[in-house]
C-alpha cells in the first residue's frame, strides 16, 4: 500500500541557484532562492527584467534544471527525473500560457487546444470532449473552427489558456500573459485565471507589472536572482469587477 502525506507541497524550492557559463564568464541568474507553494495558491512572481524571474519560472515548470539546490514538484525532485519523465509531467500536470500566445498559425482553435493531448495517449472521443470542455471554459466555443489569425489578441490568449487547462493540470504557469494585450483583453485573461484558481487550479503568474500581480493571492519578489519579499496580497484585485485593467 502506498503511503502518502496529505500535506505534500505542490512546489518546493530550496536554495535554488542557476549559473550560466559563457567562455569562463559566469552569470548568476538565481542566487539561492527558497520558497514553497501549496496546492490551490495563486502566486505572482514579480521582478524587473533581468531579475531572474524567467529563469526561476523555467526551472519551476521543468523546462530547465538548476545548477544547485533542490526543486521538487508534487514531491518529486527534478534531479531524480529523466528528460522524458519531465516531459510527461509537463504534459499531464502542468499548463503553460506565454506572453506571445504561441499558437500554431495553420491549425484551428480546436487543433491548437488539442496539442498537449496528442502527446498524452488518450482515446479520440475523450480527447474531443476534453478539448470542447476547455474551449467552453474560456468562452470561445463559437470560435472552435477558427484559425488564430482570425482571432483578436485577447481571444488568442484565451485559446492559449484553453490549451493550458485542457489536460486538467494541477498548476498553470502563466508568463506575462497580459504583456501583449490591451487593458480590456488583459482584464478578461486575468478574470479567467482567477476563475480557474477558484476552481482549484494552482496558478503561478510571472509579471513585472505591480497592478497585474495584485490579482494574485501572494507575491514573491525577485531582484538580482535573490528573493527579496514573499507576502500575501492584502487588497486583492478582482478582474471580474473591473471594466478595465489599468496599467
Amino acid at each position, binding site marked *: 500500500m502506498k503511503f502518502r502525506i496529505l500535506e505534500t507541497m505542490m512546489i518546493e524550492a530550496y536554495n535554488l541557484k542557476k549559473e550560466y557559463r559563457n567562455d569562463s564568464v559566469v552569470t548568476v541568474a538565481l542566487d539561492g532562492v527558497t520558497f514553497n507553494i501549496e496546492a490551490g495558491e495563486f502566486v505572482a512572481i514579480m521582478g524587473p527584467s533581468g531579475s531572474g524571474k524567467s529563469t526561476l519560472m523555467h526551472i519551476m515548470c521543468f523546462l530547465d534544471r538548476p545548477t544547485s539546490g533542490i526543486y521538487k514538484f508534487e514531491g518529486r525532485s527534478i534531479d531524480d527525473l529523466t*528528460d*522524458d519523465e519531465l*516531459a510527461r509531467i*509537463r504534459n499531464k500536470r502542468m499548463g503553460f500560457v506565454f506572453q506571445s500566445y*504561441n499558437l*500554431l498559425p495553420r491549425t484551428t482553435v480546436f487543433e491548437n487546444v488539442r496539442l498537449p493531448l*496528442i502527446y498524452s495517449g488518450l482515446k479520440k472521443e475523450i480527447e474531443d470532449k476534453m478539448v470542447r470542455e476547455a474551449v467552453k471554459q474560456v468562452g470561445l466555443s463559437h470560435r472552435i473552427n477558427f484559425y488564430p489569425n482570425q482571432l483578436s489578441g485577447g481571444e488568442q490568449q484565451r485559446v492559449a489558456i484553453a490549451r493550458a487547462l485542457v489536460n486538467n493540470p494541477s498548476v498553470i504557469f502563466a508568463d506575462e500573459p497580459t504583456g501583449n494585450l490591451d487593458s480590456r483583453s488583459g482584464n478578461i485573461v486575468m478574470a479567467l485565471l482567477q476563475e480557474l484558481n477558484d476552481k482549484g487550479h494552482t496558478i503561478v503568474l510571472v509579471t513585472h507589472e505591480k497592478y497585474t500581480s495584485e490579482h494574485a493571492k501572494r507575491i514573491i519578489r525577485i531582484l538580482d536572482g535573490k528573493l527579496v519579499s514573499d507576502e500575501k496580497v492584502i487588497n486583492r484585485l478582482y478582474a471580474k469587477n473591473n471594466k478595465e485593467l489599468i496599467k
Partner: protein
Amino acid sequence: MRLSDSFFTAIEGLKVNKGRSALTILGIVIGIAAVIGVMAVGQGAQSLVLQEIQGLGSNLIIITPGGSEQKEGRPSISMGVLSAKNLTLDDVEALSRKMNVPYAQEVMPVVMGSAIVTHEGQEKTANFIGSTSNLPQVHNRFTQEGRFFSDEEEKGMARVVVIGSKIKEQFFGEGNAIGERIKINRRSFEVIGVMEEQGVREMQDIDELIYVPISTAQKQLLGINYVNSIIVSVDSEEFIDQTISDIETTLRIRHNIPNSSNDDFTITTQKELSETIGIVTAIFTILLSCIAAISLLVGGIGIMNIMLVSVTERTKEIGLRKAVGARKKDILIQFLFESLLLTLIGGILGIIVGCLFSWGTSLVFKEILGSSWGFILPLNAVALGVGVSVIIGLGFGIYPAQKAAKLNPIEALRYE
C-alpha cells in the same frame, strides 16, 4: 503520439510551403523515375533478346567449323563460319546415327547465302537458307500455306522453295503463290510453301528469307560441298552436356583429332548464348542504374537541405511542442515522418513516371525495330523504388530530425 496525428502533423508541415515541398519532391521523382526507367528498359530489352534466342528453338546445340581458340589474334569463330570447309554432310550423317549421338532428336545442316530472286519482272536480293526437311521442328518455324520440302525432295536435289511471308507478299500480293515458279539465280524453282510471319530476330528479318533443300543450295546455288553449321536439337536440357561430348567424340574420330585443343569445330549451345547475353545486358542495366542512382542521391541531399530549413523556421513550434509535453522521440518522429512523406510521394510519382518512360521506350522500339518487349511493370524495380525512397527519407531526414529533437525548449520558445 498516434500515427494518424503524426501523419496529419507531417502533412500540415509540408503544406506550410507547398512550392518548396513540390520542388523537393521533384528531385526525388527524377531520381526514382531514372532508376525505374533504366531498370525497366534494361529488363525489357533483356527479355526481348532472350525471347528471340529461345524462339530459335529449344535446347539447340550449334556446331560451327573452326577451332574456338584465337590464333595470332584472329578470331576464329566468325572467320570459321565463312571460310572453314571441314564440316560436311557426311558429318551430319554420322551425327544422325543413334549409336554415335543417342540423345540427338534432330540433326540439321545449314548453308546460307544470298541470291537474286525474280518473278514476272520483279527482282530482289534475298538471303536463302539451305537445310533439311526437319527445319520447321528444329526452329519452330512452320508454313502457313503449302508445305515444307520433304526428305525425298532434299535428297533428290529438287528445285523447290519455301518463301518467307514478306517475299510472298512482294511477289504475289494477296494472290496464290503455291505452285507458282520463281527464279533464283536464274534457275526456276517451284514455290511449295509460305512460312508463317516471324518478325525480326537478331536484326534479321526472318520473313524475307527463302528456304531450299540443302543439296540444291550446295550444288546449284553455291557450288560447295561443305556446310556452314550443323544444328542438333536435344529432347531435354538434361542431356545437353552428354550430347555435346558425344558430338565431340564423333567429330574427333571422323576428323582424326587427337585432343580437344586441336578441335577444328566449335560447339555452342543456346543456353550459353542466353547466359552470355543475359550477363551483358544485366551489367549494362546495373551501370546505368548506378548513374541514375546519383540523381537520387542529389534528391536526397535536397530533402536534407529543406528539412534543415524547416527545422530552423519552426524552432518556436518545436519549443512549444516540447513545453507541452512532446518528448525527444515525438519531435524526431514528427520530422522523420515529414521527410518520409516527401520521399514517398516522390517515390510513387517517380515510379509512375519511370513506368511511363519505359512504356514509351517499348513503343519507340516497336516503331523502329518492328519487334519489342510487351510493356513490363518491373515489380522488383517498384519495390526498389519504394524501398529506396523510404531509406532516403529516413537516411537524409534523420539529421534534421535529430537537430529538431535536441533543441532546447527555452531557447526555442524565445526564438523569433
